[in-house]
């Protein structure tokens, strides 16, 4: 430290005190940058290899056709062909239907469960584990449980037995074109809500208690407190989770594959992601599947862009 504090010494070294300080700072910055970039290499390589490369390859493939081992450029042919597929529009309709249902049920339920858990004074930890438990179950196992026990169309099925004991009409669940999508949303919400509940809970706990106290003093009831304090205070998290939820539900695949054995009754479970799978892996049409994948990418990217713009403006 003497070189910095004693003026005479700096002259001997031929460099001024600030210059040495700058050099040290620069060296440290370079070292930190190199370390940072070295750490980044792993993530970048992973993304490049497993996300960006397949994405670019998919876009390229969507303009090609491979027949008899020979790949040729075919322009927009795959796109016109995939749009002409009789299942194309039903698949989009089903996907949007699921997304809307999931937004109503799958988005609201975790929020209110989180509020409820936040209000509880006892058994908080225990209940949190209980809510999060389904997330730890592999999705395929959870869906098989629903398929064979909850959605059994006979009266022996769990849900039908409950409905019957309440003297309510039973359902054919996955075997009914009308019940297919709501049934998939119920299963999907049950499986996935644990994660969202924990995020909401964390965000609820950041809301200063004084705000609630002030609201209570102003005579606000439970609903007014939720509406005027909780929702505004958690708006950012709510907005972020809404976008993640929509992007995730638009890619709905494993639910129809397991619960409905694919297309479901009269195509009622065919989603865009399942149609991609059908073309790619059953119909020897990887190029058509790539085209549909690109269409989905464009739709989701456009949605995300509009969404980000809207939410940013609000802020």
């Amino acid at each position, binding site marked *: 430290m003497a070189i910095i504090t004693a003026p005479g010494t700096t002259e001997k070294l031929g460099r001024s005190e600030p210059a040495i300080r700058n050099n040290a700072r620069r060296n440290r910055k370079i070292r930190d940058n*190199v370390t940072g970039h070295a750490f980044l290499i792993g993530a970048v390589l992973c993304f490049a290899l497993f996300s960006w490369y397949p994405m670019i390859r998919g876009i390229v493939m969507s303009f090609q056709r491979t027949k008899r*081992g020979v790949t040729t450029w075919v322009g927009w042919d795959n796109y016109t*062909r995939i749009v002409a597929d009789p299942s194309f529009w039903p698949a989009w309709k089903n996907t949007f239907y699921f997304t809307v249902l999931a937004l109503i049920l799958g988005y609201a339920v975790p929020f209110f469960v989180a509020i409820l858990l936040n209000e509880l004074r006892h058994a908080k930890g225990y209940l949190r584990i209980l809510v999060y438990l389904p997330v730890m179950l592999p999705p395929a196992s959870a869906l098989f449980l629903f398929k064979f026990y909850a959605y059994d169309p006979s009266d022996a099925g769990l849900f039908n037995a409950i409905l019957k004991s309440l003297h309510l009409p039973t359902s054919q669940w*996955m*075997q009914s*074109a009308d019940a297919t999508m709501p049934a998939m949303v119920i299963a999907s919400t049950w499986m996935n809500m644990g994660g969202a509940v924990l995020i909401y809970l964390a965000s609820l706990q950041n809301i200063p208690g004084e705000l609630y106290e002030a609201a209570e003093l102003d005579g606000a009831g439970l609903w007014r407190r939720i509406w005027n304090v909780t929702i505004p205070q958690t708006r950012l998290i709510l907005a972020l989770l809404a976008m993640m939820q929509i992007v995730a539900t638009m890619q709905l695949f494993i639910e129809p594959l397991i619960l409905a054995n*694919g297309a479901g009754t009269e195509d009622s479970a065919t989603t865009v992601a399942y149609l991609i799978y059908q*073309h790619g*892996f059953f*119909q020897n049409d990887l190029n058509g599947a790539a085209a549909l994948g690109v269409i989905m990418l464009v739709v989701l990217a456009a949605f995300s862009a509009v969404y980000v713009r809207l939410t940013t403006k609000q802020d």
Partner: protein
Amino acid sequence: MSAPQYRKAVAYALAAGLGLSLAACSTKSDDAATDANGKVTITVDCQPVGTEKDLLANWNADVAAFQKDNPDITIKSVSVGQQCNNPPDFTARLAGGTMTDVFYGYMTDLSQVLDSGQAMDITEYANKDTVPTFDSIDPALTKVFTDGGKLYALPVKNYSMGLVYNKTLFQKAGLDPASPPKTWAEVRTAAKKIADADKGAAGYAEYSAGNTGGWHFTAELYSQGGQVLSEDGKKADFNNALGKQVLQNLKDMRYGDNSMGTRQLLQWGDLLTNAAAGKVGMFVGAPDATQAIVSQFKGKYEDWAVAPLPGQDGLAKSTLGGGEGYFFKKGLTPEQVKAGLKWVAYEKLTVGKGQFDYPRAKPQNYPVGVPQPLLFAPGTEAQKAEVELRKANANVDPAIYALFENQQLPIKGEPTNAQAIYAVLDSAMSGVLTNPNANIDELLKTAETKVNQLLAAGS
């Protein structure tokens, strides 16, 4: 080591490790096709899975015996699942270029194997030298694997559909197992009796998901004398009285009689699981469905029998046939192709060895006596030897298949674009099996429009 240095070292190590692992991923197997001693190595799939203990032990014994007889060949075999060819897995492996050197596929896979550019022309190698029974193979089967005069696979299995039925449930319902239904009307009557006698059982079970519904619609349409596509293959040809009859028969059983059980949207494994549990009276299937029920789904062999496919007025006008074979991956050396052919010949096409090793299968309680795989042309030496050996070692009552075997129906192959068409027809099948108010005319019309659109789009 200071904290920044330590962090830096860890980062470099991670990056280097990842780089190395990526490099390892991109490196092909270092197994040379032929080593310095002239030893040829080939990889082969469809090895039985670990749970099929006897079958796996037999396979391993066969590999050892084959390598002893052919010391210059090394077989490296892998299992690709119980079904050997689950269509999406098959396509994924094909697209990913991870097929073994010699790989198992369905007759309907030729087109996609050719499109993937991975099919090896084996015409000049497949002959009596490499496959001793080559001249006995039914020429209709090698024709299915031929394109533009070039042979791309060696057939190893051939089947045609019949009516598989549970004799125990027949007896329970007061039906005579020796006299199974010959018409769809008789199937309906028997299904009702079975469902009435055993409340938990489906008198008749049917597929309607995962493209298997379309597959069975095709078989049942053939039984009516119909066809899925017009002769030129350019138009759908099932929206007619014959197609309607297929769906009407099913709807009558499902909702008229409630004799098909409540759970629908069944696929291959779902139906056979129920059958093995003794909960299915009848279903359309090939004789080897009984093998699958016993060896894979733990059913009882003595419960089952197979009859010819029923038709509308008497037996079926024709039935659906199909089969499997082994393809060879493009780029193999001539020595590898010859080694692969020799192995397939040993394991699948030699009477007394591999799949035809009946003396070995008999004490293992693996069904012997099933009239399959029907590989050799009638009257050839191999065919006569196979029938003789099968009869001598039969551990199941030959009467089980007698009805099926004695009444050979004309066999029709699967339509072109089979899987895409089956996916569309699944919807019609699931419609009549899950919706009591399903309108058959509308279902067929929609399916016809969809298939015509598919054909027009050239998908």
